[in-house]
C-alpha cells in the first residue's frame, strides 16, 4: 500500500492534477451520472448505517473484503473504482477495500500470501499459479469471454508483420501479461528468437494504455497491447489510437479473469464475491460498473478457457 501511495503521490506531484486514464473519456461523457451515483452511494451507506447496523456487525468479521486490481489492465480511475466498490459492497453486504498494485507480480504475491482475498488479474499469472488459484468468473466482452493481443506500430509505420519490426524498440505492458508480453514473446520463441535479441530495446510500461502512448509518442516503434483495451481506447480516446495502427491480431484467448486462492474458495467472503461478480449484470449498480468497463457481464468459466494461453506458455518455455 505504501509503495502504491508513493507512486500515486509522485504522479500527482508531477502533473499537478489527477492523471488521465483509460476510463476518463467514458467518465467525462457522463459527469452528472457520476455525481448522482456518489450521492446515491452516500445515501445508501447512511441508510445502511441507520437501519442495518446490528446485522452488519454480526455478518462481518470486522475486516473489509480486500479486492485487488492492477493498473496494468485497469487504470486507476475514480469512477470505475467507486462504482465497482459500491456494486460489490452492496451485493456482498460488506465493505470492500479495493487494492491497487503496479504489477501483476505484486497482485499475485498479495493474493498468494493472503493479503488480498480476491483479484482481477490476467490469464497468464492465473495459469502460472494454476494449482493455487481458482476462477471466480470471467468478463464477457462483445458476447464472449475472449479477447486478443494486438501488435501495434505508429500510424505511419510501413511494417506489416512482426518480422518487419526487428531491430526496433518495443513496448510491453508487463512481463506477466498475456496480451502485453506472452503473445509476442511466444511468437518470437516459435521462430527461435527472444525479445531481447529481436528488438533493439524492450521496455515495460506497466499499463496497456501506456503501451499505446509509447508507440503513439514514438518512444518505441512497436508495442504489445491488450486488444480489449485498444478497442475501448479507440472509442473513448480515438485521437490516441489514431496515432497507432494494428499490425497483427492474435487468436482469441481467455479474457483476464477474477481469481481467488483455491484453498479459500469455500470461505463466505469468497463465495459471496463470486456470486456478486457473476450477478453484476442483474443489479443496477453492477450494470453501471459493466457499462463503465464496456463489458457485458461476468460469467462462470472453466480453466479450459485458457488453453490457448497455456499453449503459448508452452511455446515460450519450449523456445
Amino acid at each position, binding site marked *: 500500500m505504501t509503495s502504491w501511495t508513493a507512486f500515486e503521490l509522485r504522479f500527482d506531484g508531477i502533473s499537478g492534477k489527477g492523471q488521465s486514464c483509460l476510463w476518463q473519456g467514458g467518465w467525462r461523457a457522463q459527469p452528472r451520472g457520476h455525481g448522482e451515483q456518489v450521492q446515491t452511494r452516500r445515501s445508501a451507506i447512511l441508510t445502511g448505517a441507520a437501519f442495518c447496523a446490528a446485522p452488519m456487525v454480526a455478518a462481518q468479521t470486522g475486516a473489509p473484503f480486500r479486492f485487488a486490481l492492477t493498473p496494468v489492465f485497469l487504470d486507476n480511475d475514480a469512477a470505475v473504482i467507486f462504482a465497482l466498490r459500491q456494486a460489490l459492497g452492496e451485493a456482498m453486504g460488506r465493505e470492500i477495500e479495493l487494492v491497487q498494485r503496479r504489477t501483476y507480480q505484486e497482485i499475485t504475491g498479495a493474493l498468494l500470501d493472503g493479503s488480498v482475498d480476491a483479484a482481477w488479474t490476467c490469464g497468464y499469472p492465473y495459469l502460472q499459479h494454476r494449482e493455487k488459484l481458482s476462477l471466480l468468473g470471467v468478463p464477457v466482452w462483445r458476447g464472449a469471454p475472449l479477447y486478443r493481443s494486438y501488435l501495434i506500430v505508429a500510424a505511419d509505420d510501413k511494417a506489416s508483420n512482426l518480422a518487419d519490426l526487428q531491430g526496433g524498440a518495443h513496448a510491453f505492458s508487463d512481463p506477466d501479461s498475456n496480451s502485453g508480453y506472452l503473445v509476442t514473446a511466444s511468437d518470437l520463441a516459435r521462430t527461435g528468437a527472444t525479445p531481447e535479441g529481436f528488438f533493439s*530495446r524492450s521496455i515495460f510500461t506497466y499499463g496497456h494504455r*501506456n503501451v499505446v502512448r509509447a508507440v503513439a*509518442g514514438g518512444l518505441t516503434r512497436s508495442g504489445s497491447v491488450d486488444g480489449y483495451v485498444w478497442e475501448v481506447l479507440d472509442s473513448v480516446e480515438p485521437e490516441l489510437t489514431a496515432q497507432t495502427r494494428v499490425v497483427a491480431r492474435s487468436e482469441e484467448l481467455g479474457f483476464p479473469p477474477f481469481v481467488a486462492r483455491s484453498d479459500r474458495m469455500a470461505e463466505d467472503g469468497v463465495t459471496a464475491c463470486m456470486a456478486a461478480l457473476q450477478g453484476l449484470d442483474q443489479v443496477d449498480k453492477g450494470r453501471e460498473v459493466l457499462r463503465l468497463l464496456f463489458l457485458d457481464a461476468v460469467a462462470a468459466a472453466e480453466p479450459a478457457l485458457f488453453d490457448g494461453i497455456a499453449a503459448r506458455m508452452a511455446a515460450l518455455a519450449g523456445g
Partner: protein
Amino acid sequence: MIAVPRFRDLPVTVRVPLITAALMIVLAVVASQSVLGALGRVQDARLSETARLHVQGLSVALGPSVLRQDVWEVYDILDRARLASDGQRLLLTVVADERGRVLAATDPRRAPVGHTAAAFETAAVAPEALRMTGDPVLRVTSPLQYQGRTIGAIVTELDVTDLLAERRQVTLWLLAGNALATGLLAFGGWLAVARILRPVGALVQAMDTSGGAPRPIPQAAIPHGDPGLARLIETYNQMTTAVEERAEAERRLADRERFVSLGRLSSSLAHEVNNPLGGLLNAADTIRTYADRPEVVRQSAELMQRGLAHLRDVTRAILDQNRLDRAGQPLRPEDFEDLRLLFEPEAQSRKLALAWEVQAGAAALASQPAAPVRQVTLNLLLNAGAAAAQGGQVGLGVSNGGDRLSIAVSNTGAPMTESDLARLMASGPLPPGGGVGLRLVHDIVAGLGGSLHHDRAEGRTVIRVDLPAAGQTHA
C-alpha cells in the same frame, strides 16, 4: 537637380523649429529604448523563472527513475509534464543519463532513446542565465541531481515566439505611438516657435527685400508681448528712418554740388565779365565822342563786338554747365573749350601754369555723354587748382586708346589726404568733414562704368578717369 541648402544657411525661423523637432525625436527614441529595455528585462526574468521551475520540478520527479534508467517512467513523467503545460513554451525536453545518452525525451522521434544528447546541449544555458536572444527557440540545460550526485542532465527547448511577437508588437506600437506623438509635438513646437519667431522673420524679410532702402515694419506687426523683440524692431524702424534721411541728404547734396563748383568759380567769372565791361564802356564813350569819325566808330564797334562775344561765351559755358536738358547730348571738343573758359580765370587768379592737351578726336569724344564728363572734369580741375599751391601747375590730358577715353588731371602741390582719397576712390561710407565733390566724381564715373586711378610721382598728383567706349555704358 535641386540644390539642398545647408542647415546653417536655412532661415532661423526654419532652423529653430527643426531643432525642436529633432530634440523631441531624440527624446522619443530614448524613451522607447528605455521601455523596450524594461520589457526585455521583464521577459527575461519571466522566461528564466519558467525554465527554472520547469527544470527543478522535473529534477525532483525524475531522480529515482533516471537512477534506475527506467525509460518508460522518465518518458511518462516528461509526457505528463508536457501535457500539463499544454505544449506551450516547452517544445522539447530531453533527459540524458550520466554518459550523455538520451534516456527519454518528450519527442522520442527527435531524440531517440540511446542516442547522444550532445546535439541538444549546444547553445544551451543554465536557467538563471537564460536571456532573449532574438532566436525563437532557446535551450536550457541543468544537471540532474539526486541524493547528492549528478546522475544525468535535462535539456529543454523553450518556444519564445510569443514573447518575440509581443516584443515586436510593443516595439511597433511604441514606434507608431511615439512617431505620432513626436510628429504632433514637433508640429506643435514648429507652430509655436514659428509664431514666436514671426516678428524676426518679418524683420529679416523687410531687410532682404529692401534693396538698399530698408523698409520699416508696421506698428501692428510689433510683438508688444515680447519687450526684447519689440525693442529690436523699434530700433530697426528708427534706423530705417535715419538711413532714408541720410540718403535723401546725400542726394540733395549731390544736386547742390554742381552749383557749388560754379559758386567756387563765381569771383573769377565776375572778373571775366567785369574786365570786358570797362573796355566796352570805353568803346561806347569813344563812339559817342567821335561819332563823326567813321574809322574810330568802326574800330570801337569791333572792340565792343569782341568783348560782347567773350561775355556771350562765358555765360553760355555757365548755362551749359547747369542745363539739365543737355543730359543726353554727346561730348564734343567744344565742351573742353567751355571748361577751359570756365577754369582759366581761376587759374589766372592763382597764377597757375595750365597745361591743356586734348588729343582725342571728335569721334572718340562723341561716344561719351557731355554733362557727366563735364561735371567730372570740372570737379577734378577745381580740386587740382585748390591743391596746387600759388604759382603751381595744373594739367589736363584727354586721350583715347583702344576702346576707352582717358581723362587725366594732374597738379603739383601737396598730395591728397587720406580722407580725400577715400572720398574719391572708395565706395564705403562717406568720411565725416569735407565736401561731397570727390564722392560725386566717384559715383558718376561708377555710373558710367568707368574707373578712377590715382598716382603720385615727382611731386605731381595724377587722377586718371578711364571711360569705356559707348555701347558698354549704361548711357
